[in-house]
């Protein structure tokens, strides 16, 4: 197997607060292969955005990476000095945020923002940067890019602005693009177009994508593999098809049950009872145990680590640990 492009190992992110330290991410591990689309799913507050922010070095102080490591092509990037980090941000890892209405500086034209970014990373003249910028806008589907490039962000609709944001994220040809819910803030009618543009343009340039979303439908259509986060811990990682048809983790099974397009029969539409614990109230053992209908003895005492019951798949659940599974009560 090829070497991963991005490798996250036992990543811990903590936020010191007045009432103790919150662990937003607790030993999260996953890989992203060159050119692949990894879907990152989980409920609100599961830690998806924090994972993206940690990778690109944008955790807001006093939050900090308290453990683990992040490697890009084998090099550690989680402990870089600001100067070195800037060579990665935008240049090797691009980022697309959720809300295109607020992602662009309202006081600068699209051209100014694109040219500034291009010239930060690529040694070229203003004219050349502009040419690149126009080509890029054209590629992301802005009609009459040559003319529209000198407009201000407020002249564009939400969908068009998100295309501009994608152009900005991609303008230095990064190897990885982190897209944090890139369509949540958009009109439903343009969501699939935006995902398509993002996916196509990344495929064209061989950039891998980490696609953060709530929408299992989007993951099913777009991603190669999917990673499921729950309460700051990785629950399951695996190829999309396999995870959808045969999820290993009880939480993922519940999630899959809630995609209507993938389940013909309505009786498979199971809702998981209860809600995700808050960070200061994560139970001992498996974080999912209060909501899990298959929980058994070890689930309440020990935390399950990610293990690989099948090639290419990983799950953190005692049901899949051969040693513990013997204790599963039958019936």
């Amino acid at each position: 197997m090829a070497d991963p492009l991005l490798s996250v190992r036992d990543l811990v992110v903590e936020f010191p607060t007045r009432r103790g330290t919150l662990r937003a991410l607790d030993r999260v591990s996953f890989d992203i292969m060159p050119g692949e689309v990894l879907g990152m799913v989980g409920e609100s507050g599961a830690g998806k955005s924090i994972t993206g922010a940690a990778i690109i070095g944008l955790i807001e102080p006093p939050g900090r990476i308290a453990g683990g490591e992040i490697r890009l092509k084998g090099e550690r990037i989680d402990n870089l000095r600001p100067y070195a980090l800037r060579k990665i941000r935008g240049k090797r890892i691009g980022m697309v945020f959720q809300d295109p209405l607020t992602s662009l500086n309202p006081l600068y034209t699209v051209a100014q923002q694109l040219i500034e970014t291009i010239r930060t990373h690529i040694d070229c003249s203003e004219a050349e940067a502009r040419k690149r910028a126009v080509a890029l806008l054209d590629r992301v589907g802005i009609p009459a890019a040559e003319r529209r490039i000198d407009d201000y962000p407020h002249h564009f609709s939400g969908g068009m602005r998100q295309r501009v944001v994608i152009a900005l994220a991609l303008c230095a040809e990064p190897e990885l693009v982190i897209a944090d819910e890139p369509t949540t803030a958009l009109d439903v009618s343009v969501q699939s177009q935006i995902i398509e543009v993002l996916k196509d343009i990344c495929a064209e340039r061989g950039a891998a994508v980490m696609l953060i979303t709530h929408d299992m439908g989007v993951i099913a259509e777009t991603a190669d593999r999917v990673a499921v986060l729950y309460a700051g811990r990785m629950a399951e990682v695996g190829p999309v098809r396999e995870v959808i048809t045969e999820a290993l983790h009880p939480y993922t099974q519940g999630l899959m049950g809630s995609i209507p397009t993938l389940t013909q029969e309505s009786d498979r539409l199971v809702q998981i009872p209860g809600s995700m614990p808050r960070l200061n109230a994560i139970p001992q053992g498996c974080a999912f145990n209060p909501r899990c209908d298959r929980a058994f003895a070890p689930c309440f005492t020990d935390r399950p680590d990610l293990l690989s019951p099948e090639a290419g798949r990983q799950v953190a659940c005692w049901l899949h640990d051969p040693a513990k599974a013997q204790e599963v009560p039958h019936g």
Partner: protein
Amino acid sequence: MIAFIIRRLLQSIIVMVAVAAVSFTLFRFVGDPVNSMVGQEASIADRQALRDSLGLNDPILLQFARFMGNAAQGEFGISYRLQMPVTELILQRLPATIELALVSGFLAFVVGLSLGVYTALRRRGVMSNIIMTGSLIGVSLPTFLIGVLLIWVFAVELRWLPSNGRGEVVALGDWWSTGLLTHSGRLALILPAITLGLYQMTLIMRLVRAEMLEVLRTDYIKFARARGLSARAINFGHALKNTLVPVITITGLQLGSIIAFAIITETVFNWPGVGALFINSVRFVDVPVMAAYLMMIALVFVVINLIVDLLYYAVDPRLRVDRAGKAH
């Protein structure tokens, strides 16, 4: 753009008419101008004759119309006290006030902006905390106290700087005189400028800091960081420009209040400006001067407001009229 300017001009005219009404009321009803002009021993008939010649017995609206007409031509009558045309009196003293206000406004803006940006970027630094605490003193001490303290330290104890007057002035053309061209003029300007500007400076500093912190939290700054732009480009390009939009408005309006506040500073430093003139005219119920001063301050506010709006318009593209059919 033109429609915008016309609309703002109309608003300005309405404001000026309203202020004129207040000035006129003051002019007409505060104290009896005739009393101020003649001695105790003048007879009733003398007084009546004076009233008639001043037009004080005409219908009120006619008097107001006459007042407005005169005001529009910069004509505010004769000072009761100094027996000189009010406009001439004010014009004589205006350069001193404007010079003082501009210098302290500039000082307040430059220092306030720099300190505001510094304390926003080094939010947790020791120096920032010291500056912030110091600024609290700046906003809470009354202007005259600051003036008196400065005089005591720099003029009385250290004897470095003069404590009153404008120093030597040089005439520029027929109606302007400046102290900026002579050494003693510049020295004389220092203490009053600091006194007058200190309050506005702390205000601007706190405003810049709050705005900048707000802007630094926005998504477009996060996105700019995620694109790998340098800290310099982010802080002094993206963040500062967005901070300036609201700061310009407030600062511009502050210049108006600097001119208005100059009354106190001018009194403390015996500065020969319009503020000191106003204080003296109040003491002697010299109503034409008071009315003219009021109108002048209103005019200053209105003009500054207009300039600020235009500046705002130049800085913020969102205010410009959208070209048709662009929002797609």
